[in-house]
């Protein structure tokens, strides 16, 4: 079985690096030989929505801030449909203390990580734990 994680961040260099590392950690950490992990990436909420429309996504990891909009555009769109509402979402924040995870639970947000301090193995572990 193939599971797909979608990672969304405006910074292309950061995104490419994080996607590659995440893929490696998911392979390393996953104990289930029947599951193969695939990582897709998008730089904008609009690109993310286009990917989500085309294929099943098991978990979304997304930055909170984007250049011309913020993550609420993406979350509001995803909350509108049953099949996208149930996708677990993990937020990446630059300002950990400014965000209360409780405010985002209705959008299907299950966790948040601080970009300045998170470890990739912890993120990979969380993805395995919450993915559909």
């Amino acid at each position, binding site marked *: 079985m193939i599971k797909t994680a979608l990672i969304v961040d405006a*910074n*292309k*260099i*950061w995104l490419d*690096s994080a996607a590659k*590392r995440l893929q*490696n950690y998911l392979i390393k950490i996953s104990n289930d030989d029947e599951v193969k992990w695939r990582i897709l990436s998008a730089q904008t909420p609009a690109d993310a929505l286009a990917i989500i429309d085309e294929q099943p996504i098991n978990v979304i990891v997304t930055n909170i801030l984007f*250049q*011309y909009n913020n993550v609420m555009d993406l979350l509001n769109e995803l909350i509108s449909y049953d099949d996208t509402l149930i996708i677990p979402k993990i937020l990446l924040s*630059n300002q950990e203390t400014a965000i209360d995870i409780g405010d985002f639970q209705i959008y299907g947000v299950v966790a948040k990580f601080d970009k300045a301090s998170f470890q990739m193995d912890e993120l990979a572990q969380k993805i395995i734990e919450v993915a559909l």
Partner: protein
Amino acid sequence: MSDGVDFGAVAMSAATRDLVNPLLTLRQLSLQLGEVADLSLNDKQASWREITEIARKINLTTTKTLDISRQLQLSLQSIELIKLEPVQVDGLCVDVYRELSPLGKEFSCNLRLNQRGLRSKSAVAVGNYDSLRVVLRSLIVDTIFGSVADNDNSRTIEIRSNRLGRAKVELAIIDDKLDANWRSAAAMVSDNKIAQPIVNLPNNGTAHLLLASRIVHFMGGRMVLRSRRQGGSIIGIVLPSSKQLSLWGDAL
């Protein structure tokens, strides 16, 4: 800065905000580098390619970070410390072009020097060569960074110098792909009345523009931001021209 707004506080705020992104990127790349190095025993060739690629990205990101720091330092110092002198703008453009061409090439960004500037009796501006060089290279590095961020291999950035009548000289960076709403940025760099620089630019270019406009203002000049009708944008630095005779064009 007018309206009682402390420029230092605004500049620090903008620079702090714009430094977060490259610093987070450096953190990510350094962690990736460590992991690739650990794996290098299995497939040395593949690892070496990846290490080289990561090193290039670290170089670009570090350059951007250092430029913000240097511009912040220049913009916060006393105006008297920026010594005004005649600056041969074509020579400055050539120097910056030569310095950044390899970087542009590495990131598939086509950096071009407008040869119209290399004519006899070329323009001489009043300014400070070192400060102008920092400003110009920072703005160009931002656009190169933008081409990497957009994954756009066909981006062309042109460096051009123009005379604007007898009294002014313009240094211009013409980016054929950068589409931004310049209204708020233009207000920020022209009248300096914005308390908080909130400008939607790709890759957080706010600090560079704010700091560059301050440094250019110190030299009696101003920055001009405008969209091109055929797409893309022009970032211009307009400086007073010097009466000193140019020797650059004659020397070439």
